[in-house]
């Protein structure tokens, strides 16, 4: 290898890849459970500032557990959102832990608004749910708490490959964005808190680039629900600022309320049917589509201005709205792909199919099967993104700590480390080649259009997959000019992988279910498709199998 870099070797009990809200929650929870266990967070940007929790909506889902039971929400979710593909037991656990999680976040320093009587200040969003606005310094507060508990943190280092030994996790490799230093980290447990795949399209979703998912796939762990990686949201067409709850008020150019026909109740969040209606309007000559809040039947959604009324978040949102006000001269909207593929398959303790390897938060939400037939987090369950990360972080702690305590000191496999090192720096070694952005642009052109990603058909899946395969051809030719660019090359490769997995699994699922919408198979097929699609790398081959959803053991039953 011509690239000359420093080689740093480290060892820890638990390595956490990713310093967003999930990684920090896991770190704190592991230390609370087992103070003697060494915990190291490695984050490719800056722990406490990276991730999505601190630049998104900043809302936490709230359940009044004195009034509703977890099974009430599960029943609603299975019928309206998850479409019988979710793990009902796991979803019930998430709901039951709600108030505990809010108290824990407060204990760890997060600012949640409270009423004078000490209760949380909540905004109802439906008969079963409510939201609490959390200030956007949540992750900074959690970082401080983690550091006080002795968690070690390394920033600006990207985790690239996972190391295994005898089928179990043994650590990871990575490199510094600042000076290229190669990191070889031996670890007894590894927790992936690296986010979902969002293809670098939506602004606030830009940190989810799927490189953690790709590392897990390369290591041979199973992925689940890869076809649910096509979330989209309505945005203002000029500023691309999202319009939450806008789908209830979509009007075509003829002034017709195009989303009222399928609205049986106020939608909990954007539905793929609304995106289909937008597509129909655009193709049948009745577009573009505008939102109208003052028309009959139109009603502005939740009073969001009150949700944002927080000292830290206020300035963030003021800038977002103020800068956009000159361009947002009307309420024309169109969908924007967000993605949210979160497919690392995990059990209730967030352990993947590789012993000692865990995945939490946005990396494994669909892989955990909790949300069912919807891309998440938060998917169509607003406020569940941050809390799912907290839930998963808490849920993995005991198992990850115990695994680290019982596992022998890991030895890294020299051949694996060498191979990883070569793979990591390969784009810098090439004399010439295409850029990471050439590859990303191609993948974006496949996944971006709604008729290729959300409202799909066998012919369009083929076309999109062919574009992705053209991008795949370019991957071995990518040339990086520096370490920032090197990371882009790895992210581009991960985007190609995510998109290929998405389209191959989408072609298999010959039905429509929940968010998943096929023009050529418009009906939900409970006879043949109460199944999860499992993807796995077997000796370099992308393989797919199906697994029956064990719905018989849960309360809410589908009609077969």
């Amino acid at each position, binding site marked *: 290898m011509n690239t000359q870099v420093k080689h740093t070797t480290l060892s820890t009990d638990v390595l956490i890849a990713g310093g967003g809200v999930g990684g920090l929650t896991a770190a704190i929870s592991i230390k609370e459970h087992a103070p003697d266990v060494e915990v190291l967070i490695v984050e490719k*940007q800056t722990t*406490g*500032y990276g991730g999505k929790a*601190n630049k998104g909506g900043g809302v936490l889902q709230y359940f009044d557990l004195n009034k509703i039971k977890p099974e009430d929400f599960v029943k609603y979710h299975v019928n309206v959102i998850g479409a019988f593909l979710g793990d009902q037991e796991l979803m019930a656990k998430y709901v039951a832990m709600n108030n505990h999680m809010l108290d824990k976040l407060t204990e760890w320093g997060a600012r949640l608004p409270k009423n004078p009587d000490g209760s949380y200040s909540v905004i109802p969003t439906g008969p079963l749910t409510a939201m609490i606005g959390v200030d956007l310094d949540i992750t900074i507060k959690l970082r401080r708490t983690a550091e006080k508990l002795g968690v070690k943190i390394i920033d600006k280092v990207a985790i690239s490959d996972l190391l295994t030994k005898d089928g179990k996790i043994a650590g990871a490799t990575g490199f510094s964005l600042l000076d290229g230093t190669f990191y070889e980290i031996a670890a007894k447990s590894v927790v992936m808190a690296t986010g979902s795949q969002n293809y670098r399209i939506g602004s606030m979703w830009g940190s989810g680039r799927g490189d953690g998912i790709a590392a897990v796939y390369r290591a041979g762990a199973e992925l689940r629900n890869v076809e649910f990686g096509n979330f989209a949201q309505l945005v203002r*067409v000029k500023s691309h600022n999202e319009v939450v709850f806008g789908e209830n008020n979509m009007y075509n150019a003829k002034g017709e309320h195009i989303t009222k026909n399928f609205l049986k109740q106020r939608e909990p969040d954007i539905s793929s049917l609304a995106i289909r209606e937008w597509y129909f309007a655009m193709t049948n000559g009745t577009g573009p589509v505008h939102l109208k809040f003052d028309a009959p039947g139109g009603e502005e959604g939740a009073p969001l201005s009150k949700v944002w009324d927080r000292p830290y978040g206020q300035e963030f949102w003021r800038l977002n709205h103020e*800068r*956009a006000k000159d361009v947002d001269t009307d309420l024309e909207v*169109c969908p924007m792909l967000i993605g949210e593929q979160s497919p690392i398959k995990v059990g209730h303790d967030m352990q993947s199919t590789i012993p000692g390897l865990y995945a939490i938060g946005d990396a494994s939400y669909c892989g955990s099967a909790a949300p069912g037939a919807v891309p998440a987090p938060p998917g169509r369950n607003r406020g569940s993104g941050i809390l799912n990360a907290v839930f998963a972080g808490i849920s993995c702690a005991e198992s990850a700590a115990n695994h680290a305590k019982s596992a022998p000191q890991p030895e890294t496999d020299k051949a694996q480390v060498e191979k990883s090192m070569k793979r990591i720096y390969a784009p810098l070694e090439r004399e010439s080649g295409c850029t990471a952005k050439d590859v990303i642009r191609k993948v974006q052109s496949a996944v971006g259009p709604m008729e290729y990603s959300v409202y799909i058909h066998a012919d369009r899946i083929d076309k999109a997959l062919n574009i992705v395969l053209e991008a795949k051809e370019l991957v071995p030719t990518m040339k990086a000019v520096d370490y*920032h660019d090197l990371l882009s090359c790895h992210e581009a490769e991960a985007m190609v992988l995510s998109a290929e997995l998405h389209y191959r699994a989408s072609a298999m699922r010959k039905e429509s279910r929940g968010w998943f919408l096929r023009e050529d198979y418009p009906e939900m097929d409970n006879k043949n498709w109460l199944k999860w699609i499992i993807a796995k790398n077997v000796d370099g081959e992308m393989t797919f199998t199906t697994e029956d959803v064990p719905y018989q053991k849960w309360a809410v039953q589908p009609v077969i």
Partner: protein
Amino acid sequence: MIDTKHEIIFHPEKCVGCGLCYKACFVDVIRWDEESKKPVFKYVEDCEHCFYCESVCKKGAIEVRPNYASESLLQTFDRYR
């Protein structure tokens, strides 16, 4: 978003070298110059116009000027390309 044309205006005379903007940038646009104790806006073409750097700067040393037209929504209809 890739290859955006957002502008980041920096007023070095207002900067106190706290480094918060560098930490805040979640897409590695901003690097830190240890000698001058000032940010370097090294990869502006990767800016996602999140305004996070500007909102954490208590001294008003940073202003993000978005070029919304340089962002693509990637739809097949001409008006949203």
